[in-house]
């Protein structure tokens, strides 16, 4: 039983922190708010050179063969920096190709992703916003040249910069996954902007989008387990990122409480503030336990890995909402200003709270598993 990071894992964390402190400062994030793509090409290249994009891909494709724990370590740091870009959607799609792809599909995409030459994303949500993979409404129909996809996909992260879209759709055989070219005919992309300007979403309208037979990922109709697995990895990854954002908010609140003086004292000396900060730390530490337990459980295929993913997402959703919100409260008026950086991280946590299954969805998954 060892809940602490190995020295390699700690090294990865430290180097990620150092890199992002230098290359992903709040000022960098602010500059990208106004950028049409919303991400930095040079940062992406450097991340690929650091080996982050191939972190959990096989060595044969230029990856490092590591697992969800290492991915979570990186994502926590990326959340702490409110990193703007398609890192997580890309590695999530890559994990699917790695798990179910043909040799040709792996050759086509995995090396390109590991080297930073390709970006990818996964389109989970259909028009009615149901996270349950069983209720897919996007349709896949057979055509003379393979398949056509029709339907709506909502809130697809970073699809506008992706080279390939991983699209779950319902084929006559059942749930299936398709690797779709974003420039395909009949596919319309339009941006959707939430409160976090460093998170970009895209609305997809698909009207008989042609897909070649070799673009099916795995056997048609057999994708339900893989979609479930991707959603769980998404949930754990999002929880890790929210944990990072929450820790940043806590650090800023504590730092501020030490120097801000009122009534002749630093406000951190008042129990009203100190107790709030202590409760925030408690939530952050429990979130750490939840995230890394769940990440380990996915890697180890532990008996409770499905439960643990939902626990992490549900718990950290509540915790980060509380921690980031209370950080604004501790700051007072300055915390509500655009110029002060706190809202960058507050909004990042908020953007992820409803993604990869919201709190209600995951609570229901928990009850299904715990209350049999």
């Amino acid at each position, binding site marked *: 039983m*060892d809940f602490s990071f190995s020295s390699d894992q700690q090294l990865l964390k430290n180097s990620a922190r150092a890199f992002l402190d230098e290359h992903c400062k709040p000022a960098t994030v602010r500059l990208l708010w106004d950028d049409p793509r919303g991400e930095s090409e040079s940062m992406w290249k450097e991340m690929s050179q650091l080996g982050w994009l191939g972190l959990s891909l096989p060595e044969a494709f230029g990856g490092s063969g590591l697992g969800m724990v290492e991915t979570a370590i990186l994502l926590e740091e990326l959340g702490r920096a409110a990193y703007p870009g398609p890192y997580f959607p890309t590695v999530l799609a890559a994990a699917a190709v790695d798990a179910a792809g043909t040799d040709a599909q792996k050759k086509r995409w995995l090396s390109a992703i590991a080297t930073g030459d390709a970006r990818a994303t996964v389109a989970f949500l259909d028009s009615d916003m149901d996270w349950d993979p069983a209720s897919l409404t996007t349709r896949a129909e057979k055509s003379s040249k393979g398949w056509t996809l029709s339907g709506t996909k909502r809130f697809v992260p970073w699809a506008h910069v992706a080279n390939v879209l991983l699209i779950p759709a319902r084929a006559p055989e059942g749930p299936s996954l398709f690797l779709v070219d974003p420039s395909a005919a009949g596919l319309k992309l339009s941006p959707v902007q939430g409160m976090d300007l460093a998170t970009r979403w895209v609305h997809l309208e698909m009207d008989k989008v042609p897909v070649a037979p070799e673009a099916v990922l795995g056997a048609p109709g057999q994708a339900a387990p893989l979609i479930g697995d991707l959603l769980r990895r998404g949930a754990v990854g999002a929880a890790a990122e929210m944990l990072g954002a929450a820790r940043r908010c806590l650090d800023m609140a504590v730092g501020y409480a*030490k120097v801000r003086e009122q009534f002749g004292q630093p406000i951190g000396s008042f*129990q009203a503030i100190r*107790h709030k900060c202590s409760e925030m*730390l*408690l939530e952050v530490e*429990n979130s750490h336990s939840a995230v890394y337990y769940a990440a380990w459980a996915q890697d180890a295929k*532990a008996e409770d890995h499905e439960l643990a993913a939902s626990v992490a997402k549900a718990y950290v959703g509540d915790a980060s909402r509380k921690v980031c919100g209370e950080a604004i409260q501790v700051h007072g008026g300055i915390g509500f200003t655009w110029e002060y950086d706190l809202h960058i991280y507050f909004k990042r946590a908020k953007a992820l709270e409803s993604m990869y299954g919201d709190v209600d969805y995951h609570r229901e998954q928990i009850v299904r598993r715990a*209350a049999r």
Partner: protein
Amino acid sequence: MDLNYSPEDREFRATTRRWLDANIPKQDLKTLDERKAWHRRLYEAGYVGMLWPKEYGGWGATPMQQAIVQDEMARISAPPAINGLGIGFIGPTIIVHGTEAQKKRYLKKMLTAEEIWCQLYSEPNAGSDLASLKTRAEDQGDHFVVNGQKIWTSSGPIADWGILLCRTDAKVAKHRGISCVLLNMRQPGVEVRPLKQITGSSLFSEVFMTNARAEKSDLIGNTNDGWAIAQTTLGFERGGNALGRVTRYVTAFAQLVKATKELKRGGKPLIEDPSVRARMGRIYADLEVQRYAALRVLSALQKGDAPGAASSITKLSYTEFEKRYYELALEILGPFGQTMVAREEFEEVDTSSGEPGTFATAFLWSRAGTIYSGSSEIQKNIIGERVLGLPKEVRADRMKA
């Protein structure tokens, strides 16, 4: 990171399970003598005093092994050992700060529960502000004469010995004039009055000391070193009950699930009610996180990392969780959450300390956790000052004259 139990720990768990299955008392233990006899068997099997060094009668086991034993006992609702304060806190204090004579005289009988111990710390006007305690001990050469009153003394009515914090110098700052001495509870100058708790039982008490005698040879450390010694005692968090506690929560959850399948609302089982499901999903996530946090603590202890002030986070987390947990259970159970004697099987629940009862007793007992051993507010002060490094508050008793 590897959250698998080691082969040794799995083997230890299997051995423990076999022993408990074969030896668990067939009937409820009613008298103190029966509980002492069960305690003795647990001790002889190596399941009490596990972390104590072998030279003092302990077993030199690991924190994980201790947690596994508590976990297995919780799994089958085995009656807990007794003398918990003695074995968990007072004994280790004597081991660290006591003389050889004291170790020889007291430790073994503490382990075997031949002598029951209590902690004489809190006073009517010294609760969270423990250092303001007033009980006086006058130096009479070879002994002290003790006068004063203690309160909230757990196990007071059955205790043979107590570890006493008392004022030996009233002229210096309050933290500097306190001594720590062992007090024989079986003497005319010591009167114990049981206090009835909101659970209806009388596990704690008031203790009145009127010209009671404490031997100089029973002084722990030097005169006026008591505060520092008490700090080490209060800081002992060995994670012993970390897993067992969570297993009891899980068992209670299974009981709650059973209840929500039997009880109905609008003609349908409660478990199908979306509002009930949402609340149960939320609390179960919370419960699982307490389990992950317990594993994290045990992993740190296993590596020899002293948790220090971080143990305040653990205590704050599970005690506050426990209140939320039983509040929710009672909300869902309606009047079934009120019964102090179970009629339906689903009402039977052990408290987090392992005492058998109902949801109502577990709920009532959950109110104690955020008060004893440093209230939640004190824990938050400790976390704020010592973990987060926030400035100390300005307090009247810290101001310069």
